[in-house]
């Protein structure tokens, strides 16, 4: 075996293993929080004993076989949720794009940045379904209410991601535009937008994917779509109809994810990539 013990000419002292008090304290804190949550939560963990058999039973009720006669209803409910998500995303983009420019440092005065950022943060804190409850009395119980709630929610996230992307753009192109005597508008159009655009487009797609999932919940308060069909059928324990809905939702959502992945790839890399079956 190789003998490594022959020392080199002049070995400096070996360093001691450093310890970080702050890091250890943080880990201790996080572990304590987790232990406390497990210890204090009102959950009968023994219920987990029946879980596997119960789960199998319900999977059987839902999927063996699903209620194929409900396919049409499940499909139109899912499509309605997708439509809500689309309108919500489009309105969200239209409102958030100018606002995120105004919220970016360097593109608008600080007095404009700060309140906008606060508004984005507040919106992000409130779940879409609560926003829907808030605007319900103004818009009535229609899918449009759901779309508006998703639009408001989208403004919160798209606004934030937008100004982060705009502020993250390399200083180089910005300086170049400024040095040619360009206005702030020229700076946005030629110094910021070209670099940030691919990211911003992919945020839009990502938010659409989120909205497709979030729209399901809005049916619970009467906005229609997946949530409504879910509620109607769970109430009367029509599990085979829920199973049908589950299958349609999974198929449509996966289809949308694949499509949006392909579009994102086209926008970022400049060419279409045929998505593999199980990417």
């Amino acid at each position: 075996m190789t003998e490594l013990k022959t020392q080199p000419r002049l070995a400096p002292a070996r360093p001691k293993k450093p310890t970080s008090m702050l890091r250890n304290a943080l880990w201790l804190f996080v572990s304590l929080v987790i232990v406390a949550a497990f210890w204090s939560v009102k959950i009968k963990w023994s219920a987990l004993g029946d879980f596997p058999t119960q789960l199998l039973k319900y999977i059987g009720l839902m999927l063996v076989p699903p209620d194929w006669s409900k396919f049409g209803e499940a499909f139109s409910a899912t499509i309605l949720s997708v439509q809500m998500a689309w309108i919500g995303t489009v309105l969200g983009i239209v409102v958030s794009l100018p606002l995120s420019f105004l919220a970016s440092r360097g593109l608008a005065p600080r007095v404009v940045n700060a309140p906008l950022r606060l508004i984005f943060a507040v919106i992000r804190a409130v779940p879409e379904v609560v926003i829907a409850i808030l605007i319900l009395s103004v818009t009535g119980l229609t899918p449009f209410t759901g779309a508006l709630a998703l639009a408001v929610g989208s403004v919160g996230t798209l606004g934030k991601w937008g100004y982060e992307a705009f502020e993250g753009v390399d200083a180089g192109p910005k300086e170049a535009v400024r040095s040619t005597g360009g206005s702030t508008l020229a700076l946005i159009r030629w110094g910021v937008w070209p670099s940030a655009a691919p990211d911003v487009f992919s945020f839009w797609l990502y938010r659409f994917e989120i909205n497709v999932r979030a729209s399901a919940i809005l049916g619970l308060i009467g906005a229609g779509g997946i949530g409504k069909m879910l509620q109607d059928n769970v109430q009367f324990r029509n599990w085979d109809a829920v199973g049908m809905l589950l299958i349609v939702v999974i198929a449509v959502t996966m289809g949308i994810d694949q499509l949006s992945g392909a579009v994102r790839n086209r926008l970022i890399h400049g060419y279409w990539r045929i998505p593999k079956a199980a990417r």
Partner: protein
Amino acid sequence: MSAGTAGKTGIQVSPAHPGRPVKPRHGAQVGAAVVVLAAITVWAGIGVQINIAAIWENWSNASGNIIQLLQPDYGFFPKVIPALVETLQMAVIATAVGSALSLPLAFLASRATNPRPGLLRATRLVMNIVRAVPDILYAAILVAVVGVGALSGVMALILFNVGIIVKLVSEALDGEDPGALEAALAAGASWPKANRAAMLPQILPSFASQVLYTFELNIRASTVIGLVGAGGLGILIDNVRSFFRYHELSMIILSILALVLVLESVSSALRRKLV
């Protein structure tokens, strides 16, 4: 790569000025994209019954509700606390369990760290299915399976978390430089050991920040899944909403807002320290 045709056919030369290239045209592509997007928007708009007039008509009776909403009933706060605490407990447990399950799954779901194409494809398919189901659907089904309460909520959130974390972390792994992994394999390590030693340290910061991000999402989600009986604030929201008690609803929203904003600032501070 940007101008697809120019890249393949070579640069075309302008007839008037030989030596200058002709401006590549993709007007048709952009035009087609705009038409498609507009058509989808019109179709979706009809589907969701966009109705601006209704907003005008409802404005007067709605203004009363909005005024009520601006006056939270602070006396209701003691009743919010237990639900708020339960929401927090659910979010913490679901984040802890969900992230622990996600880490090995993320390594199985990344092209960079899983050398077996069959296993890779199977993992990705299952994860795509898990991620496609909305959290509220999980919650509704799990309430039936394990009964009303926090347990069904926690399990729904765990599934929701695994879907998100595995996707984001496996993408981080895909984008990671595999050099150290190659070195570990060249030193005789098996794939699991090489992944642990060479890839895990590389993605730990992004894993940590995904975990904190999903924790924030969990707080928001756990307020909502209660609407189908899965514990937390949702049950309370459902009660006060059905009886149009807007002062109390307003108090609940205010509490959620305060909780999320506080946790978001704590988590972003943590993120800076951990990363």
